[in-house]
């Protein structure tokens, strides 16, 4: 393929892609004209409400709370996940329990189930929301770290042990750096999943946050706010990915390649 052909292909692709987006928004706008705002609000009012969610002090509090909960839960699940994976490496029987019982159960348990139980156990609070999120994220973190530990270069570790007897030094200088790529993978996965379940977790077990906002809007038949909350989640997710997750991943990769 010549450069020119490739370029025109690229242009055509973008034209088609942007065309689809515009068509979708136009179709939405056209349909919203003939339907009541309760069923399908117009794109303009949803855009305005989404903007409000970030600037209005009363509403932006909810967005901030949701974001902080996600960040906290991802952090906790990574730490606990690493600890569990390291623990499982100690002995065969712990590994069997973690792999065949804890992971299987945690993987299969639905977030709504946790959400309802958390509400009964911890009442409606941030603790309850973060409990649900951590329970859902934990299996992903553990699986990633276990995979990382399994692929640890045994010879490198052996060499390290022949240089020093200090297990802590080996852990900090060899094991942890070799686990970094898996940590980044765990971070990425957990971050994505946490946003997916953030709303469910907040639906029942919270007094603030975007999930609560959405539930209240739904009860009030306020479709504009329901849609705006959805878009706010999309924006927050993408912003966190671009501004926090990607730089961390890049920094870790750079760190890894330094001599």
């Amino acid at each position, binding site marked *: 393929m010549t450069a020119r052909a490739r370029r025109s292909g690229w242009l055509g692709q973008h034209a088609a892609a942007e065309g689809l*987006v515009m068509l979708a928004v136009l179709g939405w706008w056209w349909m919203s004209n003939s339907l009541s705002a309760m069923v399908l609000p117009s794109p303009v009012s949803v855009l305005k409400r989404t903007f409000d969610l970030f600037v209005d002090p009363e509403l932006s509090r909810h967005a901030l709370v949701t974001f902080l909960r996600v960040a906290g839960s991802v952090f906790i699940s990574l730490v606990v996940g690493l600890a569990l994976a390291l623990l499982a490496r100690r002995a065969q029987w712990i590994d069997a329990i973690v792999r065949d019982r804890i992971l*299987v159960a945690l993987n299969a348990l*639905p977030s709504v189930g946790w959400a*309802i139980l958390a509400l009964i156990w911890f009442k409606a609070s941030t603790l309850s929301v973060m409990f649900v999120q951590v329970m859902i994220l934990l299996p992903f973190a553990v699986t990633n770290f276990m995979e990382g530990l399994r692929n640890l270069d045994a010879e490198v570790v052996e060499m390290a042990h022949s240089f020093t007897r200090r297990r802590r030094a080996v852990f900090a200088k060899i094991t942890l750096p070799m686990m970094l790529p898996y940590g980044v993978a765990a971070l990425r996965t957990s971050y994505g999943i946490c*946003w997916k379940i*953030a709303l469910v977790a907040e639906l029942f077990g919270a007094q603030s946050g975007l999930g609560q906002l959405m539930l209240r809007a739904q009860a009030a038949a306020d479709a504009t706010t329901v849609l705006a909350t959805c878009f706010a989640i999309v924006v927050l997710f993408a912003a966190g990915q671009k501004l926090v997750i990607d730089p961390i991943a890049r920094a870790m990769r750079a760190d890894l390649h330094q001599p």
Partner: protein
Amino acid sequence: MLIVWFFAAQALPPYQLPGPIKVGDKLAWLVATPAGLWHVAASIFHVAAAMLASFVLGFFVALLPLYLPVAVIMVDGRFTPFVNSFPGIGWTMLAIVWLGIGTNTVVFSVTIILLPFMIINLREGVRALDRELMEMAGSFSRSRARAFRLIILPSLFPFMFSAMRVSFGVSWKVTLTAELLGGTTGLGYLMNVARQELDTAQIFAVMLLIVLLVYAINRLLFDTAQRHLQLGRVGAAS
């Protein structure tokens, strides 16, 4: 663990932690009475219908760029990220407004939530299609339908399989949520009733049943199918 659970349940009020025996009773009700089985069957139907619908839709979307190269960015850069990042609850809430409470809402929202998982897995397969193999197929026969049946479809099998497997795990969880908010039957609906009546034993029973169901179907259906698939490929290669 059962023993710890038993004694912990003795010490706590039953609405916080019901004992294993009470949960066992509820579980028996779910799988051994017509009323309980009706809800289990409804959930299985919701999961199956949504998986089928999202697989068919996802298959078309994933193959579109193969025949219409201009649609690559449209699919990979716009449509998939959008459905992938739009929150599932949002779809359920909108479906309640659009379709009312009932089976339609549940199947619709689960279908859309599963769609990105299907597309992402199948797109991976389309991208991995062997260019040279396709070229060879083109030089042997001009029939596009034949190339599709004999080359493209078989190369996509492993990816279809993983698409189904990933979606199956997700589908149970989101079906529960959808039924809870927008259903009139199914395990999620039972869970909502249990929540309002503070019937924690029922909630435990539903969660336990789902874990057992997912585990059993994974073992019986997917593991067996995977073994057959691998055997088939080894057989073809030798």
